């Protein structure tokens, strides 16, 4: 049976979304995307460098016809900044599927959930399909669902921290209370973190720093691909019950 990640009525074979920031150069970034098997990548909206026209462009290395660009509002600290950014992103080339991220604190980069919910409502009304970066709070996740989000993207830990999933219980609760795609966004550090996210029942993971800043980003991208696949299969297979005593794997019958 085919197992797809469905976001806003579009199927993706890969459950791994990768960020395109922090790489040494676009070549490394594009090789890492290839190794990761990702079909969706996040991108940022910034000023064109009109004074240095020789600077390479992201679109020259990552073809938006082959890989789904997911414009992101990374770096926005208010609803109005985030809305402006995504409206501009839509004008670049008709992007409606977007990732909303409204930060509330420069030190932790935690999301400002009040601004985030407000922005989700406005963007949804404007026809955007909004995937939303959020705290790992089950009540906030529900509020986002009601505001029209097409995917809930709780943090595992602060952005770029590499700490892995800090509150597995909350992620499980969010999972049990929403049918929307649940994608862990931010804070993963290594491949096993991605497997754990998938084993908790998440539909996907979004990874940037853990790949881009690894000693070997391309190899880590591949490791993440396999980790997501392994975690997903493990989740679908149904794990055994935990017991505190041992249970022999070999039959007693015929013991010499």
């Amino acid at each position, binding site marked *: 049976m085919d197992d797809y990640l469905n976001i806003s009525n579009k199927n993706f074979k890969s459950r791994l979304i990768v960020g395109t920031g*922090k790489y040494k150069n676009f070549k490394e970034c594009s090789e890492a995307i290839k190794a990761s098997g990702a079909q969706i990548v996040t991108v940022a*909206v910034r000023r064109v460098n009109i004074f240095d026209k020789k600077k390479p462009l992201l679109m020259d290395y990552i073809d938006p016809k082959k890989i789904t660009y997911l414009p992101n509002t990374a770096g926005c600290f208010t609803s109005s900044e985030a809305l402006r950014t995504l409206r501009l*992103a839509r004008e670049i080339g008709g992007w409606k599927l977007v990732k909303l991220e409204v930060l509330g604190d420069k030190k932790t980069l935690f999301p400002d959930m009040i601004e985030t919910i407000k922005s989700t409502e406005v963007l949804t009304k404007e026809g955007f399909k909004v995937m939303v970066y959020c705290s790992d709070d089950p009540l906030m996740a529900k509020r986002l669902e009601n505001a029209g989000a097409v995917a809930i993207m709780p943090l595992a830990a602060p952005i770029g921290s590499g700490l892995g999933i800090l509150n597995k219980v909350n992620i499980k609760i969010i999972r049990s209370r929403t049918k929307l795609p649940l994608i862990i966004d931010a804070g993963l550090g290594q491949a096993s973190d991605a497997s754990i996210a998938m084993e908790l029942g998440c539909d996907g993971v979004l990874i940037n720093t853990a790949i881009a800043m690894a000693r070997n980003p391309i190899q880590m991208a591949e490791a993440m691909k396999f980790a997501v696949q392994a975690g997903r299969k493990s989740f679908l297979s149904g794990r055994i019950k935990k017991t505190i005593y041992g249970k022999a794997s070999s039959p007693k019958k015929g013991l010499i």
Partner: protein
Amino acid sequence: MKKINKVKIKINGRKRSINSKISLKCLLSTNKISLKKVAVEVNEKIINKKMINKIKIKNGDKIEIVHFIGGG
């Protein structure tokens, strides 16, 4: 010699003085910016790219030209 009228504008935060007759579309093409890869804002109003031909540049305009870059 005929004097060329200049207008003072800001592009992506930098001050520039340009020919007053120039259109927004012309400004982009002279800077070798492909319209397909960018979005343009004039005085915080997003310009519909289909209408870009009709936009004239005025003195004091603040123009922002953005595109996609690598990000998380």
